[in-house]
């Protein structure tokens, strides 16, 4: 197992700064999620770790050794691709065995290791099938087995769940987390899905425009976003922003409550004009305005609201976050 350090990593494609100065440290056995919208540089950052791209500047360190000029195969890194990238002309067995065959291990050892990895992932009965004969979820397991069979120092995963349908994706997520904890391999996981990031990550690094905007445990990322980008990207619906007295006031839709339901704690009050109410089964969303600014409240079903009316709403003051009007960076107040 291993730790990974990124020091001032930059990557330019022509005039575009895909990765623009990233410092990160991934601990031994940690599950780090790189989260960001498309074009934020998260996949490029992962490809840099893999050695499929060369950094324009900066140092990549694995286990204390600078590996900038080490080719992918000698870095001890394995990767699970978004499309799984199984070799379509090889059986499942030969797919998983490929990294070992390349290493030149003898046949009995290869068979032992492949069967071990396949058993771990519950795909032992598929070994003689071709990739075209197994389901999406099974392909994903084969791809993971192929990545793990060599006992890599670091496991990289590029949106491995995005090709699965919604139902399977949820179970796969739970299993993936359980699995990673069992074998304890250092993992870097790229996704644009915040639910995945929240559920899987020991820590999350939120990226945008080639930079890491915030890194922290999922709770911190959600409750204490470092700037308006992170606050607006995380959460569904995202954080509400209202400008007051020259600062941006931010609060999550689920802490924005009718004043009469609020506790006796210190409250920040708003006048909320409801324009539309959306019933979503277990909860409802109220769309409306504070002054001119659109905001959303996430409420329990029993809260009575009428479209077109104005209400007194409030937020516990300790749930309110303040951001700088120009830079969007969090300020304490």
């Amino acid at each position, binding site marked *: 197992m291993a730790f990974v350090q990124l020091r001032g990593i930059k990557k330019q494609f022509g005039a575009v700064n895909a990765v623009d100065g990233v410092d990160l440290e991934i601990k031994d056995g940690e599950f780090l999620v790189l989260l960001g919208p498309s074009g934020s540089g998260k996949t490029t950052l992962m490809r840099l770790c*893999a050695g*499929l791209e060369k950094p324009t500047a900066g140092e990549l360190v694995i286990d204390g050794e600078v590996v900038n000029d080490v080719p*992918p*195969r000698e870095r001890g890194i394995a*990767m699970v691709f978004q499309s799984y*990238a199984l070799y379509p002309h090889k059986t499942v067995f030969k797919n998983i065995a*490929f990294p070992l065959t390349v*290493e030149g291990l003898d046949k009995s050892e290869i068979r032992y290791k492949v069967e071990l990895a396949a058993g771990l992932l519950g795909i032992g009965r598929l070994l003689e099938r071709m990739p*075209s004969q197994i389901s999406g979820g099974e392909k994903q397991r084969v791809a993971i087995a192929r990545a793990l069979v060599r006992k890599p120092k670091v496991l990289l995963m590029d949106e491995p769940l995005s090709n699965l349908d919604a139902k399977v994706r949820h179970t796969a997520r739970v299993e993936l987390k359980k699995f990673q904890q069992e074998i304890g391999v250092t993992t870097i996981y790229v996704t644009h899905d915040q639910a995945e990031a929240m559920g899987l990550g020991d820590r999350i690094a939120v990226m945008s425009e080639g930079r890491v905007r915030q890194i922290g445990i999922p709770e911190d990322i959600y409750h204490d976003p470092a700037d308006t980008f992170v606050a607006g990207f995380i959460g569904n619906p995202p954080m509400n922003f209202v400008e007051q007295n020259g600062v941006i006031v931010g609060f999550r839709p689920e802490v924005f409550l009718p004043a009469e339901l609020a506790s006796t704690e210190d409250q920040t009050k708003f006048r909320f004009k409801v324009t539309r109410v959306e019933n979503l089964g277990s909860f409802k969303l109220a769309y409306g305005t504070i002054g001119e600014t659109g905001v959303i409240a996430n409420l329990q079903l029993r809260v009575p609201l009428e479209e077109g009316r104005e209400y007194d709403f409030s937020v516990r003051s300790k749930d309110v976050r303040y951001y700088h009007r120009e830079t969007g960076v969090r300020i304490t107040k």
Partner: protein
Amino acid sequence: MKPKKHFFDRETVLAPLLVLPAGLYIVLFVGFPFVMSFVYSISNVTVGNPNFKIVGLQNFTAILADPVFRTSLFNTVIFTVVSVLLVLVFAHILAELLLRDFRGKWLVRFLIMLPWTAPIALGAVGFLWFLDSVFSPIDWLLRDVGLLGKPGALLGPASNLYWLGRPVLAMASIILVHVWRLLPLGTVILISGMNSIPKEIVEAAQMDGAGYFRRLFDINLPLLFPVIGVTILFATFFTFTDMTVVWVLTRGGPPPNATQVLASLAFLTGIEGGDLAQGAAIAIFFFPVLAGLAIIVLRLVKKAIVT
């Protein structure tokens, strides 16, 4: 109200109508000559003799007994196998090259594609001068660097190599010109095949620790197999049935028949010699060979695609 159906909206009208031009083309320009040559090959028809009699397999037994036919068959096989192999290797190299980015790529691509756009006879005439027994620029070059034309020179003391005048060199020359001619087609087919291999699969192999040759033989070539099969098929058809290059450069010579191939022999016998029946019998000989090859290759390709 029932929507009014146009005459051309009816499938029973439109479908045959759309297929008709292709059908007509095949019947008139492929089917008819094929049937004609088959009928000729079992007849006694000649240019000068209008009486027409079916003589059975007589023409076939005659050509099989003819040593010129056997030489031509042997030459055709050599010509085809060597040309196809060379086309495959060089087309693969060119395709690898053209898939990379480099300065002046458009120019290289343009130059590589050029032979395909020029009429084949024109290109071959150009080579005729290149390989001329007295004025060959290749010989000039060899003489200039001292490989030819001096006592003790590597390629001999004569002033020229006589490219088209010596049996082995003549065959080599014909293969060279034909490969030059087929290379663009092979390159284009292989480029499209290589583009269709997902980048992630190649990268996965890289991550799995496979070096260049391991990736080439274990990943790329197996995935390219269907495309390579098609390339072999096309290259074989174009080579086996080609006579332009041979006819322009050597006319089957040097004497007696050093570069005679089946296509040129059929032409020589049937048209120049006027013996339509025997010419047709020689030409018909292509059919089982090429059809058999096509069936084998297409079956293998299909199997490779399914799995």
